[in-house]
């Protein structure tokens, strides 16, 4: 079974923000909500590296674990989605998420926190696939259209990869072998070392 994953190859990421605007474009994400961002380490000095970050659609999602109203669910492909009709905007998922994926559009003087918004792996939400309601609340549902997330499809250097975990990992593994380095990246063994079983 296709278990969807993102990988951003930091050797290729040039911080062009193509992934960021592709997401804005595809889902009409408003100003102030950043489903995807590029983070740069060691900016301006040798050793500078960038990586594109959005929701990692964790296997064991902390956001889902802590949500007091249980508005999260996980699809069969491993995509973590949530129901904005149930979300109460408490922000707890934002505390829990190590990647800062949950976004809250704020309005007004007191920064009233609206419903949580986050990367959906371009898989929409609990509304009917491709419906107006789904587009209004969550954006487009590219997976149901037989496409992959817009951010990865448009990445300028093919640094950001998204899709079936096996394919994505194969691509990266191929590059690592070409380069002759990269497997020493921290966490590699944990995240990508073993082939996931079909249906896992």
């Amino acid at each position, binding site marked *: *079974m*296709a278990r969807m994953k993102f990988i951003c190859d930091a050797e290729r990421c040039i911080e062009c923000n193509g992934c960021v605007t592709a997401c804005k474009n595809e889902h009409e994400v408003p100003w102030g909500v950043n489903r995807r961002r590029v983070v740069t380490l060691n900016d301006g000095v040798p050793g500078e590296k960038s990586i594109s970050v959005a929701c990692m659609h964790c296997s064991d999602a902390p956001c889902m674990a802590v*949500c007091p*109203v*249980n*508005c*999260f*669910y996980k*699809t*069969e*492909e491993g*995509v973590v*989605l*949530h*129901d904005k*009709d*149930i979300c109460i905007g408490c922000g707890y998922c934002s505390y829990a998420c190590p990647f800062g994926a949950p976004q809250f559009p704020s309005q007004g003087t007191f920064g009233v926190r609206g419903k949580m918004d986050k990367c959906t792996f371009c*898989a*929409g*939400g*609990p509304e*009917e*696939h*491709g419906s107006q309601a789904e587009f209004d609340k969550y954006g487009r*549902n590219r*997976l*149901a*259209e*037989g*496409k*992959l997330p817009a951010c*990865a*499809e448009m*990445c300028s250097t*093919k640094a950001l*990869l*998204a*899709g*079936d975990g*096996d*394919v*994505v990992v*194969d*691509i990266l593994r*191929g*590059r690592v072998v*070409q380069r002759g380095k990269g497997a020493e990246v921290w966490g590699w063994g944990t995240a990508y070392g073993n082939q996931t079983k079909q249906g896992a």
Partner: protein
Amino acid sequence: MKTAFLICSVVVLAACGEKPQDSLGARTDKPVQNGTGVAAFTAPGWKAGDKDGWANHLKARATYGMNDHVRAPQ
């Protein structure tokens, strides 16, 4: 009178009692491979409802679109 009071209090108190744990929460989605039904926006090469076909189509799309070493072999 007393019965009425008892009945009322039961009804009222019942409303204050703990509801059973609701483990459902969010609605869940229909399977993604059902598609959107909108042909104009759907990528060709797979049929709605065909889970394996959809998965294979996406694998091919990822390889074609993201693996430049396959597009431009050494």
